[in-house]
């Protein structure tokens, strides 16, 4: 049932089942509010990566990968692409690269919301961080298996 890699601990495994969603929701929370409070894509990404790393230690590598759903490598690519692309829309309105573009949305429940390219950028950072940290950790773990 368990791979060679993980710690064979029922307590940790169970705790991980509980902590994983907690860490992930916490990470999204940190990402979304990062523009206004401490947090942001980088920190959020690290927390998310920690969550998966915990799963890796507690369960096994395969489960950890299943949590992630994507290859960490692809996350790197998409994250970078988001990061680069978020700088491009400005060019179409005749502004320099990475000039932030904001959209004011009025949503039914959430009310007025400012959505801008910096957020897209932060999401790119988030994805890259998750991808990078997990690519490193999972490769290292797999190397041991």
């Amino acid at each position, binding site marked *: 049932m368990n791979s060679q890699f993980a*710690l064979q601990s029922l307590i940790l495994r169970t705790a991980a089942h509980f902590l994983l969603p907690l860490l992930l929701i916490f990470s999204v929370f940190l990402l979304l509010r990062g523009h206004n409070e401490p947090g942001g894509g980088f920190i959020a990404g690290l*927390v998310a990566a920690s969550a998966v790393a*915990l799963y890796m*230690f507690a369960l096994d590598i395969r489960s950890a990968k299943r949590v992630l759903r994507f290859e960490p490598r692809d996350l790197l690519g998409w994250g970078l692409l988001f990061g680069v692309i978020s700088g491009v829309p400005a060019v179409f309105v005749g502004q320099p690269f990475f000039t932030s573009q904001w959209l004011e949305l009025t949503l039914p429940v959430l009310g007025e919301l400012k959505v801008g390219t910096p957020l897209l950028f932060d999401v790119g950072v988030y994805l890259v961080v998750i991808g990078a940290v997990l690519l490193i950790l999972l490769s290292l773990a797999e190397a041991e298996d």
Partner: protein
Amino acid sequence: MLEFSIFIAYVVLGISLVLIFFRLVLGPSLPDRVVALEMLATLTVGFIAVYTLSSGVTAFLDVAMVLALTAFLAAVGFARLIAKGGSRDDD
């Protein structure tokens, strides 16, 4: 009153920090050191709490929050190392 308490709290935490540090140095086993590291993380949470009180800025609680939630991962890592027999040639 509160200021004085905070001062005392800082001093006590400072002394605690040194005590923890000694355990970290003395070991003697790796798990002993890891306990010390865990405790250091907890103590850092304590520091941040006192600092929040003394500065009146609550933003630092976020640091404590992250710390409380993730610091034990280091212990997990060490535990796994030991479980795989990685430290027998050490210490």
